[in-house]
């Protein structure tokens, strides 16, 4: 196969993988610390995309749209955390899964109410091509990859160098001990949830120019994001990074070989990995307390 085609496929896969990674990291943190499966992350993703669309349409600046999307994503996730999740941390996983699906569905309804059913296009902020190893690569996709890399480094520093981050990591091991040390666990949960929501909104805003923005966009990536989380293992940041990379490449390179493969192949890989290791690549056998 043509190497330049393969290379641009690789970059395409990296950018898709970056989007998945940004969303999956929030899901993974929520699961690791609070033991909830938060399907409503997909709502913040859609909200982020729509806010980016509206703000960049009104002001003409995509950068402003991005900032507004992240801010609104954070506020919405904070509100949802206070209203709904606060009451369900103690319950089992199934419970949070269904409740958050209700939140997601309601949110889709609200989006439909404000923006209507019609898919909206978001213009690319810059359509420049960068010459990389003799191949023309869209600069925007490189930006997406760069943002994801920056977020990974930021999250790593946050988890390893700050007190709150260390408390979160300790909480993933044992919440009781963290509470015993006098750390406000409720606030820790809120912080984690808002971080997750913000990152999902960022992912949505970044993804918006690459696809059409429509009310069901969250449900469309749902399966892929969960695949990333499952392959990587629930609750592991490193696993999420690795599996986001794998899934992105499989989607992108797979579609170069045989178009329908792009959608099915990742699921087949996921089934195979789960057969060998039922908790995912880096997942621990952590159970509900």
């Amino acid at each position, binding site marked *: 196969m043509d190497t330049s085609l393969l290379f641009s496929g690789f970059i395409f896969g990296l950018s898709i993988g970056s989007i998945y990674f940004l969303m999956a990291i929030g899901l993974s943190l929520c699961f690791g610390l609070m033991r909830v*499966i938060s399907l409503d992350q997909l709502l913040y993703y859609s909200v982020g995309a729509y806010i980016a669309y509206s703000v960049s349409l009104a002001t003409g600046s995509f950068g402003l749209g991005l900032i507004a999307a992240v801010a609104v994503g954070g506020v919405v996730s904070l509100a949802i955390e206070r209203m*709904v999740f606060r*009451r*369900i941390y103690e319950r089992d*996983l*199934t*419970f949070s*899964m*269904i*409740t958050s*699906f*209700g*939140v*997601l*569905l*309601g*949110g*889709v*309804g*609200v989006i*439909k*109410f404000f923006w209507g059913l019609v898919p909206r296009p978001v213009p690319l902020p810059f359509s420049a091509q960068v010459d990389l190893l003799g191949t023309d690569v869209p600069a925007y996709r490189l930006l997406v990859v760069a943002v994801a890399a920056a977020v990974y480094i930021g999250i790593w520093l946050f988890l390893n160098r700050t007190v709150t981050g260390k408390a979160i990591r300790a909480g993933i091991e044992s919440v009781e001990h963290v509470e015993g040390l006098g750390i406000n666990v409720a606030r820790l949960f809120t912080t984690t949830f808002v971080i997750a929501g913000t990152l999902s909104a960022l992912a949505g805003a970044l993804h918006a120019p690459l696809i059409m923005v429509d009310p*069901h966009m969250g*449900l*469309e990536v*749902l*399966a892929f994001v*969960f*695949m990333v*989380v*499952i392959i990587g293992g*629930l609750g592991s940041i490193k696993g999420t990074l690795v599996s986001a990379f794998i899934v992105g490449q499989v989607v992108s390179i797979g579609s170069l070989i045989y*178009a*329908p493969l792009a*959608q*099915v192949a990742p*699921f*087949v890989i*996921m*089934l195979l990995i*789960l*057969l060998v290791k*039922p*908790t995912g690549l880096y997942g621990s056998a952590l*159970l509900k307390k």
Partner: protein
Amino acid sequence: MNRGPTLRKAWAWWWGILLAFMLIAGMRLVLPLPFVNEILIFSIYAIGCSFLLGKVGFISFGQPAYLAVGAYATAFYLFYFGTNPYIGILWGLAAGCAAALLVGPLFVRLRSDYFALVNLALAVIVFYLMQKVLAPITKGDNGLWFLTNMTSTPVLDITQPQQFFIFAFLVGLVVWAFYKYLDDTIFGACCLATKINEDKLQFLGYSNFRIRLAAFVIANTTTALAGSLYAVYLGAVSPEITAPSRTADPVIVILLGGVGTLYGPIVGSVAYTGMKDVISKLIGNWEMVIGPLLVIIMLAGEKGIWGTLEPWLKNVLFRRRNTAADDRDEAR
């Protein structure tokens, strides 16, 4: 007094199911036929999921996968090979059973959360298989249309909507009797035990794996049956029935109705289909109502409509009976 004890026992066993289905038959008189048919099929669709979640503790976001397996097996038969819808339905049942047996041993080993997500993935795989990969056979998004291929059958002509209603009604009756029977058997008790305390069940000498596998196969064969009924009723099948945005339909229905209760799926189907119908006529935006409703139901104690009504109804209807029996039932 004059009735024999066996007859009375039989009546006590059957009366709930008969009453529920009498109400459905009553709905047939006042509501439009397509609506009632939809409710019947949807309740059969949902009871498999209800059984898995309520009795075995497995939540499945992938029920549409098995629905599609049943529907497509029926569709393939009626489109390419035969004309008799009854045989088509049998094929759907067989295919559903085979599919469940194929993936069951892999899936039931997983923890409940992974189980839900893997099933979700399976539904998406089936969707893309039917939409893209197998497009030469399934005709992709256009779907298979075979309404005119089906020949009239002698006794009960299920190609006619009126007579299809009678057939679906009878099938529903049998399915409910079967699930009520399951509840009473040792197998039903084992299912509940594997949900509540699997270590203890193992200690008693039962295999958790086998019980879960059997429950999984039973539930998903029922779901495939609903798929076949859909196929015959609509005379067409398209990948739309397993679309990713519809994966949670049965879960919502059983939560609305009440998880693990016998009549929850029926109540849920009526409420869900009805609400979707009414709301989409009024504001064309049913998610905005269903979503928060789901959250409220969960926060209010996840009992659902029937789960809340059942103890109350029992109280009102049978106040004279000894309350001990009521308490026992409620505790269940």
